[in-house]
């Protein structure tokens, strides 16, 4: 089955109650709170370390720049002149240079430096600028430690978050899976399977992924943002304001574009949904489309939808493509602003060059978290929307709690009496389907329920199985009201085989055994022989251990036989066959029926059937129409009555015209 797609383009969905959903999400994380706290602390520490680094780097730069200029002060020259270790010739060279400098009005710096370079070694060694290499090494070592520790922390932090978020996702999935079995059947009548599936996979995925990424990002980013602002102000407030203003300006523009693009993203999702829906419809109905020459029509409609998608696609693609360049432009803008203002300040001697280097990094540290916070916020939006859907499902009203019910019927001791007493029921309050239904069934009777589609046959069975709660009246099993019995107890008493041939992904054997324990191979084989599927199973390459799934290796009829075999394994006093043989051809049905009859000896059984041939030998035939029994009796009796049943029966072989 194709995986339901909800939000492939990554467009944030609007949540109804953003803060409320997130709060609830965090409350649910209580179990992992220590892991969470540790990772948050680690994230903050790692961010602070990242902030400390530029400062150190700026110190490093200052040390290097200090070692750029030769120290030619008067004192140094005096020292050289007085130094006895330096030869006279060398001193004269220096003198010459000093004189030539003082004679020049405009000093060519490059030339001067070259001349200094060519000074005798003895003097050059003294004048030459020196970098404090010991300090350089010390800072480098410190930075190395900072970088490694910061990386280590951020690694540990993300591992912890991964553990938290994945286990949380697992817990959510389990809760949803358990919830499915606690909901009344009514819920599934009004909700689509695809929607529930999407909650189990897509929504939980969204929550886990965003939690994994966004939470740490958010913490780190906010720390970095606050920290870098603080550090900038500490270092130099003028530069700080420059950096912040220029970045904010850029982000303002970006925000405007983002807002404008939002609607195209939303539109794109809608168009994509429409198109995918149309494709699904046409592909599934391919035969009809072909046979009715609907291809041209389909092509026109498809092109129309495709065109709409194309327009949104182009625009949304463009806007998302433009974001990155704008961000880097904003980064450059901040850089230039910092440089220019920084240069102004250095030339006035207010700050050192190292401060500029530090700011170049601060600007980056400041702009990156801004974009990341924006990203994390949109992620949180979709997290909130996703968790809303998950919680909404988990909050659905469950079936009534039955722990207090004391009634219990032992499987072995049940006699097999069933009574419907003035039962009234409707799937929704305003549409009553079963109006006033009463019938008494004696132990061991074979009861057939017939009637046109929508007469309420299946509903009756649903009520008997306590799948739905009756509005008024009562149903008694062995004189015990089902209201006093636990659902589990009731289900235990019934074998039920349904029209829909439900098999799960597993082997044939697993499907027959299902959840029943201690089933011998002999029992399985007997059941297969009884329903006449043993031969077919033997022809399969893997025999009884062949894999079944809902593809074509096994036909609908054979699947139905397997489900009947499953029912046969289960030994219970009551039997319900709800159109159980409608997918089997009549010859096979007859065989199965005979086997069933053997099995139902002494058991009370209910058989719903379309084909009247199946039920002719029933002890009691209930003819239903519009929620009521309109006739009841044996086949012969009903035929004699010449009423609804006789009419229904005879319509099988009336001449067409």
């Amino acid at each position: 089955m194709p995986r339901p797609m909800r939000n492939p383009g990554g467009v944030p969905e609007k949540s109804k109650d953003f803060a409320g959903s997130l709060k609830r999400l965090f409350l649910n994380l209580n179990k992992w709170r220590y892991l969470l706290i540790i990772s948050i602390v680690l994230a903050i520490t790692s961010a602070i370390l990242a902030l400390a680094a530029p400062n150190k780097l700026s110190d490093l730069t200052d040390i290097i720049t200090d070692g750029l200029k030769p120290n030619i002060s008067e004192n140094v020259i005096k020292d050289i002149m007085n130094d006895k270790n330096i030869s006279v010739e060398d001193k004269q060279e220096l003198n010459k240079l000093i004189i030539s400098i003082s004679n020049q009005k405009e000093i060519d710096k490059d030339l001067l430096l070259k001349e200094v370079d060519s000074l005798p070694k003895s003097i050059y060694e003294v004048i030459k600028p020196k970098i404090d290499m010991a300090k350089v090494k010390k800072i480098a070592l410190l930075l190395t430690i900072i970088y490694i520790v910061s990386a280590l922390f951020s690694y540990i932090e993300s591992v912890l978050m991964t553990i938290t978020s994945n286990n949380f996702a697992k817990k959510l999935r389990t809760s949803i899976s358990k919830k499915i079995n606690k909901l009344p059947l009514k819920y599934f009548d009004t909700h689509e399977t695809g929607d529930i599936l999407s909650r189990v996979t897509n929504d939980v995925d969204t929550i886990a992924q965003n939690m994994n990424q966004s939470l740490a990002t958010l913490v780190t980013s906010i720390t970095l943002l606050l920290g870098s602002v603080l550090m900038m102000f500490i270092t130099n407030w003028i530069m700080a304001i420059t950096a912040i203003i220029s970045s904010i300006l850029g982000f303002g523009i970006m925000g405007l574009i983002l807002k404008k693009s939002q609607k195209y993203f939303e539109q794109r999702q809608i168009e994509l949904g429409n198109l995918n829906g149309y494709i699904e419809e046409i592909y599934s109905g391919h035969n009809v489309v072909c046979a009715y020459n609907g291809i041209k029509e389909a092509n026109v409609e498809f092109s129309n939808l495709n065109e709409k998608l194309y327009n949104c696609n182009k625009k949304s693609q463009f806007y998302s493509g433009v974001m990155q360049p704008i961000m880097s432009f904003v980064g450059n803008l901040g850089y230039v602003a910092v440089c220019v203002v920084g240069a102004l300040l250095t030339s006035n001697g207010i700050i050192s060059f190292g401060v500029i280097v530090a700011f170049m990094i601060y600007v980056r540290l400041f702009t990156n978290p801004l974009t990341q916070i924006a990203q994390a916020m949109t992620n949180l939006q979709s997290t909130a929307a996703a968790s809303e859907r998950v919680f909404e499902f988990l909050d659905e009203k469950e079936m009534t709690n039955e722990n207090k019910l004391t009634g219990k019927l032992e499987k072995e001791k049940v006699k097999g009496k069933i009574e419907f007493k003035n039962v009234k029921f409707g799937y929704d309050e305003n549409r009553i389907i079963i109006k006033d239904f009463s019938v008494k069934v004696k132990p061991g009777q074979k009861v057939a329920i017939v009637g046109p589609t929508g007469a309420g046959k299946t509903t009756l069975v649903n009520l008997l199985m306590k799948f739905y709660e009756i509005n008024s009246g009562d149903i008694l099993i062995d004189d015990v009201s089902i209201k006093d019995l636990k659902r589990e107890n009731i289900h235990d008493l019934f074998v039920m085989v349904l029209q829909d041939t439900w098999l799960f992904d597993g082997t044939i054997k697993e499907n027959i055994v299902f959840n029943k324990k201690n089933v011998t191979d002999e029992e399985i084989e007997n059941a297969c022989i009884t329903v006449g599927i043993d031969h077919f199973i033997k022809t399969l390459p893997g025999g009884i251990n062949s894999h079944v799934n809902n593809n074509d290796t096994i036909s609908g009829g054979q699947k139905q036989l397997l489900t009947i075999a499953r029912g046969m394994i289960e030994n219970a006093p009551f039997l319900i066959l709800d159109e159980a043989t409608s997918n089997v051809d009549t010859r096979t049905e007859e065989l199965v029926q005979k086997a069933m009859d053997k099995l139902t000896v002494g058991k009370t059984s209910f058989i719903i059937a379309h084909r009247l041939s199946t039920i002719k030998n029933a002890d009691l035939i209930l003819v239903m129409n519009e929620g009521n029994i309109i006739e009841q009796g044996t086949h012969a009796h009903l035929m004699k009555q010449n009423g609804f049943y006789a009419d229904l029966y005879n319509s099988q072989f009336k001449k067409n015209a």
Partner: protein
Amino acid sequence: MFKILKNFSKKDLLLILTCTILITLQVYLDLKIPDYMSSITTLIQSETSKIHEILIKGGYMLLCAFGSLLSAIIVSYFSSKLSADFSYNLREKIFKKVLKFSNAEINKFNVSSLITRTTNDITQLEMFIAMGLQMLIKAPIMAVWAITKIIDKSIEWSILTGIGVLILLLTIGILLIIVMPRFERVQKLIDKINGVTGENLSGIRVVRAFNAEKFLENRFESANNDLTKNQLFNQKCFAILNPIMNIVMHFLTLSIYFVGAFLIEEAGLSLKITLFSNIVVFSSYGMQVIASFLMLAMIFMIWPRANVSAKRINEVLDEKISITDGLLTGEDSTSIGTVEFKNVSFKYPDADEYLLKNISFKVEKGQTIAFIGSTGSGKSTLINLVPRFYDVTDGEILVDGINIKDYKLEELHNKIGYVPQKAVMFTGTIKSNVSYGDNGKNKPDIETIKKAIDIAQGTEFVEKMENKYDSHIARGGTNVSGGQKQRLAIARAIARNPEIYIFDDSFSALDYKTDLNLRKELKKYTNDATNMIVAQRIGTIIHADIIVVLDKGECIGIGTHKELMKKCKVYKEIALSQLSKEELVNA
């Protein structure tokens, strides 16, 4: 992948060329920026320089940045047009192709796979082109250019940058090798979770009736555990990527400064300042080199997925269509309304076993032919050969005396009103569903539609609906019941007014009475049409002019009910399993 890229038109290629030029310009401008940064640092360093010089350089730098932004915007415009065009065209192509498929091809791929190929796979490719194309052009240009800019400046720094790139690529490579196969497993496990949940939902009544809730929860839990375990492993592996990236970048900067300090210390005075400004430039070019390699790595990361999608799409586009159109319109046919099978055999292209063997019969205009047999006897397959959902393997089928392979498909379909086993509804209204398609004549008017629905015994429920004939039909017809859908599907065939009706077990969803009334009315209305009916109930076919009994693909009996009761054992068995002897005699 490359094959699918051939779907670009000449105009697209021109656009790509323009993009390449613009991206080159962008790279040029981007790489110019560190030059200006370097001259700005030099300016700041030398005390003699004036502020306005810095302003000028800063201005140039911003100009470069702005130029790069501008060209990036244009490139983004072109590439979004390119990717949108690409996906639009591809979608059109694949949709049109699939509509030409016969059942053989559709079954080969299966419908849900074809749907994902037309939707998800194309979206996947579109994203790859939108993101990948730009990166694919930009990364190599940038890498090469940035490298040439720094390689001659300092061997030591170049080596450092090289080491950085190497570490990053190694990390990503190792991660991909370890994690990629697990990604596929995660995908499968997600499908499994979906599958198990789907099973629980679709079998909810069975599950409850058997008290098997725990059983299913355990199945789910084991899939859930598997998924969580694999996800945890993958994500833990990937958690290492970010710290390593950060470490590499930071260490590159640090080591450039550190090594730089030694180089400056060694160098002569005149070189010191140049060297220093080189540090600044280099650390920024080094970043560019690393960034471009990261970009390439990104492409490698999204490549496999896109490649798989491309392969899947190509499979559809390359599939040979087995049903070819003929030329004849059948206008001048003399034997209107006849269908004849001449020694028809059929098997699936790759199968060993024949599904139908040597079937021959002929129906005349106005006659009804019925097919009966047990599950898997080949009834539906046989009837599906007439509208050419499949082509016969041997033998031939004649409609109106002409081989159906010689007809234009459209003309053949104009003669046929086909009702499938499972009714198909389209989003729209009752009216649009009944008047669906094209029969070479005008669309049926409202009177015809009403009449058709009436014959199909649908008037009662349609009239009860809020907007009657204009009532909305939801996607998949979920707002009408199975029996109602079936009746509308039958009405659709009637409204078409065809020469030949094909009912593929279309009456089973109806109760006996509706079934009978429907067929009675239909007979009245379509007196001279030919009917081909597949059925399970004897009652439905008992009065057919010809009954064909099929067993394991072979025709084991042909004749009227009375004849078959005498001479065909299987038919007799089927009949007796449904009706008693007396009833059969009375019929």
